[in-house]
């Protein structure tokens, strides 16, 4: 049984212009100990998927309108809030993109870190503080006992992200969801943080869902990958399946459009024409149809079903065999 199994998840938001489906019937699963990447562009629903799993959707606008999220056999969508609070931060944790906004600026690092332990573990104050220092040390923060008394603004961006990771991992969760954990950081710091997440994962044997727009980060850190486009899954499989034989025209286009260090300078990058359709007026057929080089008339009529190419490699395209 996989650790996490998301089936036909639908997440909707009420907006002034009507109800939009940010995530539309997506299914994927993550086994224990693996790193699963979710990749896609702004507005594709990758963060909403994460927030749905955490049951942290903005209220009252956002709600899970269908499907199930099985975590260790329990359906998180059906859990009463009080139960969910015991899961969140304890068994499933999340790291956010912007470490400055994820931390509370008026509390010390120590207080924010100990809070998690006091909430979820049966720890006394002293033990929580001692454990907090250990965790800070573990995530590579120099002189952790001094840092405990400092405030987030006194730390650099990379250090803040380490603190956020420390808080997320304090209770040794089985699943860590990292939503663009390195997007706000410089490359050399990004390398440090990704390295740290990998190390900690190997140590603690947890599963990681890494959400990013950077295919490079996916290739280097993940075993499984889910490619999302306009609220749906375009393609999923192991990183080798998806990067070696991309089968959805969108995945292909994305991979071809990235400038790499070894491409010919000033050569034409291949591009995906046009832009993502708005969630308010989604086409009835395939959502990528208006940008797709392989689109046919039939693509505009109905949404493509999911085809299994081989093993766990799935693609949602009518014409995957032709491209």
């Amino acid at each position, binding site marked *: 049984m996989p650790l996490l199994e998301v089936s036909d998840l639908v997440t909707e938001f009420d907006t002034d212009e009507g109800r939009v489906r940010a995530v539309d019937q997506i299914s994927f699963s993550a086994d224990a100990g693996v790193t699963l990447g979710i990749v896609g562009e702004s507005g594709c629903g990758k963060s909403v998927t994460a927030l749905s799993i955490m049951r942290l959707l903005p209220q009252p606008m956002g709600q899970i309108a269908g499907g199930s999220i099985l975590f260790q056999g329990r359906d998180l969508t059906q859990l009463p809030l009080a139960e969910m609070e015991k899961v969140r931060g304890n068994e499933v944790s999340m790291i956010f993109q912007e470490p400055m906004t994820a931390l509370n600026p008026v509390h010390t690092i120590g207080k924010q870190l100990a809070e998690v332990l006091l909430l979820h573990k049966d720890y006394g104050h002293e033990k929580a503080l001692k454990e907090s220092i250990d965790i800070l040390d573990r995530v590579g923060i120099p002189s952790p006992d001094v840092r405990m008394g400092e405030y987030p603004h006194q730390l650099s961006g990379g250090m803040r992200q380490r603190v956020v990771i420390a808080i997320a991992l304090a209770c040794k969760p089985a699943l860590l969801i990292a939503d663009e954990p390195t997007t706000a950081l410089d490359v050399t710091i990004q390398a*440090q943080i990704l390295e740290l997440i990998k190390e900690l994962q190997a140590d603690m044997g947890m599963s990681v869902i890494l959400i990013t727009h950077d295919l490079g980060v996916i290739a280097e850190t993940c075993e499984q990958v889910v490619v999302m486009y306009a609220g749906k899954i375009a393609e999923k499989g192991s990183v080798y399946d998806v990067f070696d034989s991309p089968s959805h025209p969108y995945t292909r286009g994305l991979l071809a459009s990235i400038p790499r260090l070894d*491409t010919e300078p000033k050569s034409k990058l291949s591009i995906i024409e046009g832009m993502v359709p708005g969630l308010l007026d989604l086409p009835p057929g395939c959502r990528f149809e208006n940008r797709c080089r392989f689109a046919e008339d039939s693509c505009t009529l109905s949404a493509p079903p999911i085809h299994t190419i081989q093993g766990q490699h799935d693609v949602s395209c009518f014409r995957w065999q032709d491209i």
Partner: protein
Amino acid sequence: MSDSPILEVRDLKMHFPVKEGIFLRTNKFNRAVDGVSLSIQPGETLGLVGESGCGKSTLGRCITRLYQPTAGSISFEGQDITHLKGKALMPFRQHIQMIFQDPMESLNARHTVADIIEEPFIVQNIGDRISRKKQVKKLLEIVGLPARSASRYPFEFSGGQRQRIGIARSIALNPKLVICDEPVSALDVSIQSQILNLLIDLQKEFKLSYLFIAHDLAVVKHISDRIAIMYLGKVAESATGETVYHNPQHPYTRSLISAIPVPDPHRVVERQVISGDVPSPIDPPSGCRFHPRCPQVTDMCKHKPPQLRSVDDGHLVSCHSDM
């Protein structure tokens, strides 16, 4: 380098006063740019890479004379423009234009697209209303926006389209040099390649020179002829893109290259993760500014600042070590 450069920057310094205490006395300076020399040939793209706070954007703003540099000189087509003020600066403003990172913040939200693109003509007092309207139409076509965009407002466009509006404004007066300050970093991958292609096309068509500022080395290498890598207000290394990639000499350049995630799951990462954060430019380290993070640091690096020296034709490195 037979031609005379279109832009020559010599030993440029930009120090911002840091005001402290209740009397707001200036005791310290933020040495954002601290002795940078570079030149750009007509039709050439110079890429400027570095992490946050290395002074790359400040340098760009000094060249457009949005800032008055503290010391050093800027010559445009052989004429010193460092100390020009007011009216005397106007003719150069026409030739040196800028594209900003965030197209939402750099476009006036209360002006229509036509107003925004027309404004440079009004400021420089070029043409009458009818000819200006014609120009606006032509510029929209050049950057690939529909003519009906003219009467719309910035918020009605996506990020990529807004950046096209910014580009149309920057090339409106037929400039010779365009400073591109992180023009694609806020955009999604599939849109980023569209904008990079557009910039490359425009350069060919209008014989533009670019100073292309970005933190993403892969993007910079793709668009640039030569690259300068900055670290804490100084140039660490400069050479052609190919040389920087295949034969990097500065330890910082090497770690920067090895830190870039490559979208290829088969690549074995032999990463040189450099520890620590970028120090503050208010109180930069003594000697070589990279020495606290450098894997090859020697005693001399701690005391004596290295000078930029030539290791090969057009390849400059600021490092004591010979490699």
